[in-house]
């Protein structure tokens, strides 16, 4: 579902590349944590998935789409197929919870009737029905993040990217958010969560990919206990012999993972 093949990215003025020959393959229906300290390259990797940044070298294939061929005019359509959740929520402050979720459907051209039918179901899924008509400033941080998730999943994307979704939340609220992301993953959505929060990683016990100085230093499919400090020596480095992009694309097209509708 997500493939990075020897991807390198440097920003002008930086001595070291933000991503250095990164190869990563995330299967459909997987739940993956991308961990690393600030500056490790997590955000750059996310920005490449959302096509805010382009790699200097290497290939990126998302959901069967080779990003090399996604032109500017395709970007809005492409992004509508990916749900994105941010640490700072990025909600429209002058619109209610309901309107924030509806916005994602409006830009996709959904009819008002469909929107009126869909939004309450999404809000029900994220347990926000009782604050539907409140403004973001009048709800808690956890509820704001749920709103952000509701907006991201309203169009039932195959991929959900969450960039530090628990970063601004207390442990308990953060765990609630992670449980919600797991629930979404259970319905067949591929979920990629970046974090530097060890609690978050240990809470769900999923695959953990560790980035350090722009390189993948560990890809832990069998979950151990992740430590924020230390050298992560307990994790094995990614194995060589990644699938070639062509092979991946063909395989991705053939292989349809079991997927239930998130919103009926």
């Amino acid at each position, binding site marked *: 579902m997500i493939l990075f093949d020897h991807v390198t990215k440097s920003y002008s003025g930086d001595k070291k590349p933000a991503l250095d020959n990164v190869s990563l393959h995330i299967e459909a229906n997987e739940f993956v944590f991308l961990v690393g300290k600030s500056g490790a390259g997590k955000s750059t990797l996310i920005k490449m998935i959302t096509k805010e940044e382009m790699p200097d070298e290497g290939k990126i294939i998302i959901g069967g789409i080779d990003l090399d061929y996604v032109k500017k005019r395709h970007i809005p359509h492409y992004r509508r197929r990916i749900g994105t959740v941010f640490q700072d929520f990025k909600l429209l402050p002058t619109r209610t919870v309901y309107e924030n979720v509806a916005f994602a459907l409006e830009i996709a051209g959904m009819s008002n009737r469909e929107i009126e039918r869909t939004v309450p179901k999404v809000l029900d899924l994220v347990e926000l029905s009782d604050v539907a008509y409140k403004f973001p400033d009048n709800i808690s941080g956890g509820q704001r993040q749920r709103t952000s998730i509701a*907006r991201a999943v309203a169009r039932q994307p195959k991929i959900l990217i969450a960039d530090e979704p628990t970063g601004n939340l207390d442990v308990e609220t953060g765990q609630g958010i992670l449980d919600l992301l797991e629930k979404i993953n259970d319905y067949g959505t591929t979920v990629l969560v970046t974090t530097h929060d060890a609690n978050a990683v240990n809470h769900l016990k999923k695959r953990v990919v560790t980035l350090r100085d722009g390189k993948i230093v560990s890809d832990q499919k069998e979950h151990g206990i992740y430590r924020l400090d230390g050298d992560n020596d307990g994790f094995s480095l990614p194995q060589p012999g990644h699938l070639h992009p062509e092979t991946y694309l063909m395989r991705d097209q053939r292989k349809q993972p079991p997927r239930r509708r998130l919103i009926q």
Partner: protein
Amino acid sequence: MNKKSTLNRLKIMAKTGGGHFFRQFARIFKYGAIGFGRNIWLSLTATIVTTLTLILLFATIVAGSVLTSTANAMREKIDISIFFESDTTKEDLAKMAETIKKDSNVKSVEYSTSEEEYEKLYQGYKDSDNQSMLTTLGIVGKEMMIQRQPAAMRIKVYNTDDLSSIKNIVNSDEDFIKHLSKKEDPTYNTNSSAIQTISSWADIATKGGTALSILFLVISTLVIFNTIRMAIYSRSEEIYMEKLVGAGNAFIRGPFLVEAMMSGVFAGIISTVLSLIGYFTLSPRLEAYEIQVGNINTFLAEPKNIILLALAAILTGSVITLISARLAIHKYLKHF
């Protein structure tokens, strides 16, 4: 293989993810209208600046037109009057008119015999119901009056500043010398200094006003551009978020353009109302000074012309604000 399959997928996405044009247009309009109210200070600023620009534009056009027609009217009044003895015949006058017409500065020549001059005078008093003068004419008697009344030739010229060639003909041509009135000298009633003043005002009003209007158009475009740019800057996070959620450029730009256009439409309406109030308040005073406002009064007497004027103002206002907003948002859409 990668390219073909990617392009196929993107094609399907574009086909299924667009939405009905009118539905999206209505949504853009709705968000624009909401934005206009939400950013009321920005909206007010843009509206006021555009209104001032449009009023200035209206004033320039009116001033240019009024002063030009006043100068023209005054030019029309200018003539050279040459008087002849009362026994000068129509044929004599025609011959002299032919002679004077040969001068390139002569625009037109009119002439009348003593009798015709008397009839004009009499008709003039009759029309103005000037009983005392009519009584006097009656007492003096028509025959006597015709004998006293000189025949006249009225000449209009192109260049009021140089009448030497005409004077030369009048003073040297045989026919003129023979028939010129001994009682009344020719009058060279040019008022050229007054006309020159008004002409130069008209020129200043037209040229200076146009320059000033262009300057104001540029200033208002810049002011609106910067105000909108600041507003967009404060909302850049929103634009960023909208782009990441998959909003197309048209969907993001649209509401800003609608907001700006609403300022232009309101400015057009307000400036038309204020300009008309100002004009109708001032025009009687201008008329008192013999400033020609007739053309504009005739134009504004037609209700459809007032509607046309309002539409022109709305269109101009919208164009100014739309260009400003388009320029302001371009940078942000390009950036994300």
